[in-house]
């Protein structure tokens, strides 16, 4: 008698999480980890975990390099559309959208002065020149790729993306970016309970954002924006540009980079817009692809 429930969901998830925490560099792992958080991906998690449960005994290598032979049960077309996107580490080719030189030209490496430096940002800094911190662009490139990949996956699954910034200089630009990419923005004064008291603020049955993107983590008085904490409370993953005076700890995908220069912010807006539009185009492509394939067997049956 197969002990299917021997590797029960509870401890297995814990084991998986531990492995993921250790091997954080692998993109696929990070995506898998955060699938659990998104509500829209329930059935994908179910299919992945179910397929893992079918393995006898312990859960093998989600560690880097070792891939288990997963016998996937025959999934319907809709599941194929979603599960295909998880098979490649860079399904949406976001790494082709920018190079390190683009970041340098947009002055992303400029940090604040030494006195404004946040303790937790020290790992991301390359060094300090004439009292001004320089952000390590090699790390920024990696972080940005991960963040854009995650954003693309969210948009692919028709998640709601909310752009947050409190810099008045870029408020209009960010709102326009959000509007043109079909997503949402909030660059105004944040009223207390917009996320935590949503049913009272908006009405019953409201759908909260599935991803929050910060172009400025700090608000007008140089304190951390309330949304960082509220999103963590409401289990909403966050992507954020963290400057050398910001606290990156609560943000799921921090992107160390400059958030004050117009050229840098324009670059970020352009990149986010391109990823989201790319992901949305991909939905249409995949639907056509699988819709086309579905038509073929029908005449034969």
């Amino acid at each position, binding site marked *: 008698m197969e*002990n*299917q*429930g*021997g590797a*029960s*969901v*509870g401890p297995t998830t814990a084991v998986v999480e531990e492995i993921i925490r250790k091997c954080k560099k692998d993109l696929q792992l990070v995506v898998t980890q955060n699938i659990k958080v998104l*509500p829209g991906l*329930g*059935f994908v*998690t*179910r299919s992945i*975990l*179910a397929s893992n*449960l079918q393995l006898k005994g312990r859960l093998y290598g989600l560690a880097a390099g070792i891939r288990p032979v997963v016998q996937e049960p025959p999934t319907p077309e809709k599941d194929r559309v979603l599960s295909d996107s998880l098979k490649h580490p860079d399904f949406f080719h976001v790494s082709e959208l920018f190079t390190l030189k683009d970041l340098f030209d947009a002055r992303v490496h400029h940090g604040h002065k030494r006195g404004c430096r946040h303790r937790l940002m020290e790992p991301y800094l390359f060094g300090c020149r004439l009292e001004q911190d320089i952000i390590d662009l090699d790390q920024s490139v990696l972080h940005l790729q991960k963040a854009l990949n995650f954003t693309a996956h969210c948009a692919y699954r*028709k998640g*709601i993306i*909310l752009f947050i910034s409190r810099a008045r200089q870029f408020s*209009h630009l960010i*709102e326009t970016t*959000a*509007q043109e990419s*079909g*997503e*949402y*923005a*909030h660059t*105004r004064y944040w*009223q207390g309970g*917009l996320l935590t008291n949503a*049913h009272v*603020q*908006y*009405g*019953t*049955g*409201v*759908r*909260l*954002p599935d991803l929050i993107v910060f172009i400025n983590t700090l608000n007008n008085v140089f304190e951390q924006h309330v949304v960082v904490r509220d999103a963590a409370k*409401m*289990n909403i993953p966050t992507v954020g540009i963290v400057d050398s005076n910001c606290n990156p700890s609560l943000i799921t995908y921090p992107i160390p980079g400059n958030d004050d220069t117009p050229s840098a912010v324009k670059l970020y807006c352009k990149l986010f817009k391109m990823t989201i539009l790319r992901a949305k185009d991909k939905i249409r492509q995949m639907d056509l692809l699988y819709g086309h394939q579905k038509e073929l067997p029908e005449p034969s049956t």
Partner: protein
Amino acid sequence: MAAGGGTFSALLRRCRRCAVLLPLQTSPTAGWMPSLGRFICSSNPLQKKSMAATFHVNYTEEFIKQQIEEFNIGKRHLANMMGEDPETISQGDIDRSIRYLFPSGLFEKKARPIMKHPLEVFPKQRAVQWGEDGRPFNFLFYTGKQSYYSLMHDTYDQFLNIQIYEDKLREKGLFSLDTKPVNLVGSRWLTKEELAEMLVEQISDYDYMHFLQLLERMLTLPYCSIKEEYVLKFRRKMEDQSKKQKVEPLQLDENGIAFCKGEGRRKTAKASVTIRDQGNGKITVNGMDYLLYFPSLQEREQLMFPFQFLNRLGMHDMDCTVQAGGVSAQAGAIRLATSRALLSFVTEREVEPMRQAGLLTPDPRVRERKKPGQEGARRKFTWKKR
């Protein structure tokens, strides 16, 4: 079992993270299914809805439409029953018929049976702001004040467009500072209430102030005339106050002399005045000459003021009757009555200066009553420390 199956599928639908589908024969207990191993049912915290909010019923559009149809049909039935004409039955007839058919002794009038148009019965609700998939329609929905902030966004768009236009002109070398400004004469900015009505949203004072400041900033740009119609959407015409004055037509008496009557009040005094044309400045008050009736200069100046203002000092004869009030009050009452009477002799262009001089405004000040515990209307008794 069918009921059990129904609740189980409902449970599954709610719990998005259930690991494996079970065959439907098993009887479910929330969370613990002993036969096929442990399956933990966990639901997303975002899915939990508060029970208290469920009594707010959402009236859908189809529901309201259906109610309106039923109301119209019911109206015709009622008319047939009561012997009225179904085409021309009015709301008053409906109310009377309902009161006749369903006599109610209830004290609370709102609890009695009513038959009214559904749009009056069902409260107006803001349409649901998101679609079937839960995605809101407006890109600024999550700010809480979507209409106001999208208005600010659009206005700033217009502002930037003007600046872009100016930059283009500068490139070509055609930029100049002497441009036609937007004509704002005779109009005012819309009030906070009007803005709230326009946006179907509550506006705070600061929001309103910021919006007006943005529009003012836009008007300071030299080339703001290209966005004139956008700005004029937020201006309202001010009505001419002088047009509100009622002007009595001139009457002719038996000798062919034009005359006009006027009435005025001040404090308790009431005056009624007849002004005749082609006179030489004779004024009679209660049958007496005005020099005898008003010995003081101050009161006589009040009588003269309307004529002096219109440069008609020796041209009219005046006959007035005045009751009640004191000396100054009577003089003020006669002055107001005179101005009103003179309106008929005067051209339209002169009415506005008269109004601005205060000749046509009745003085609202009356004697304030004495209050108990005080010596007078405002004066308190002397305060004694001990």
